[in-house]
């Protein structure tokens, strides 16, 4: 059987398709979208709820303790929280524009791929640099501000060496974290990105005509 012979059968099937009732439609519209992007948007929202609950709770606790060390811990969490808010806004903006279902298929897939790659870069670099940031902030809070700065006074001239050791330690921790993040991001989105790229490559290729029968 040739493809052209299937055309008539294909067209006949239109008449046999049953209509959707108002009840069925209503039931479907009440359901949530299960597309990967819709799930990512929902996950981001719940991530915000969890992070906001934990951070607000912890910061409030430290603030109400009203001890100098605790205040600095609250400040450290506030800085990390502010970074999370920036990450949330950035990720939300990317997810908002990640797809255009009413656009041509090729341009929609291209938009998806570009946005997903940006999202991966954001996730990768933020996840990686969060480690030295947390370590350095912990250093500042833990060594300098707790105990009313008594410990720092004891260190005296050695402070610079402690600082260097701490920075080296932070860098050593950052390098493996980059690879761990890369592995994790690849686990989350790697297959999706690969498949998107493969489909787009197929759409973008300009095939060379080898068939003599080009009279479609």
């Amino acid at each position, binding site marked *: 059987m040739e*493809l052209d012979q299937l055309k008539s059968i294909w067209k*006949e099937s239109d008449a046999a398709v049953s209509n959707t009732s108002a009840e069925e*439609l209503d039931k479907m*519209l009440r359901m949530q979208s299960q597309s*990967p992007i819709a799930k990512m948007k929902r996950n981001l929202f719940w991530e915000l709820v969890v992070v906001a609950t934990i951070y607000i709770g912890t910061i409030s606790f430290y603030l109400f303790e009203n001890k100098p060390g605790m205040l600095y811990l609250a400040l450290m969490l506030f800085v990390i929280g502010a970074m999370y808010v920036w990450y949330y806004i950035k990720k939300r903006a990317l997810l908002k524009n990640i797809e255009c*279902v*009413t656009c041509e298929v090729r341009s929609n897939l291209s938009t998806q791929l570009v946005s997903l790659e940006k999202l991966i870069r954001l996730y990768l670099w933020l996840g990686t640099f969060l480690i030295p940031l947390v370590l350095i902030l912990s250093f500042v809070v833990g060594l300098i501000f707790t105990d009313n700065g008594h410990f720092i006074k004891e260190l005296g001239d050695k402070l610079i060496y402690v600082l260097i050791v701490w920075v080296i330690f932070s860098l050593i921790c950052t390098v493996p974290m980059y690879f761990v993040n890369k592995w994790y991001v690849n686990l989350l989105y790697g297959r999706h990105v690969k*498949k998107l790229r493969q489909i787009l490559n197929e759409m973008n290729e300009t095939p060379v005509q080898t068939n003599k029968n080009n009279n479609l």
Partner: protein
Amino acid sequence: MLKPTAVQEQFLQMLNQNQGIVRKVCHLYSRNERDHEDLYQEIIIQLWKSFSSFRGEAKFSTWMYRIALNTAISDIRKQSRKVELSFPEFLPREEADAVDAAKEEQIKQMYSAIARLSEVEKAIVMLYLEDKSYDEMEEILGISNGALRVKMNRIKDKLRTMTKEEAYGT
């Protein structure tokens, strides 16, 4: 159940006028009944979400093809989890009832071959079977007219080879 709104009624009417588009996309991009229903529901949700933005600049069917194909092709995660089957688990009943056994076998072979095509090739085949012009295909898929013609020729050759292989059991 709440009374459908005027917009919902208008949407339902337009959906039912073009129901075949959604059903056919679901036939081509699902491996079983459950996938079919999931994809159908997902396409309806996407159509409904975008309905308010439909300005009538393009034909309603073109707009619908875009959404249906974008939804089906983008649902990659689900596709990659599926077991790759060489034969579709179902044949559209309405088509199967209308033809005799020998022809049904040929149709099954053709569907089986189409099921093994890539996501992009399936979309091109579907639009070709729908008798869409290459300009319309370009408007839906975003692939140039010339490239579509060449791809279509390649697909025809591919399907011919695959159906022969299936018929001779190689």
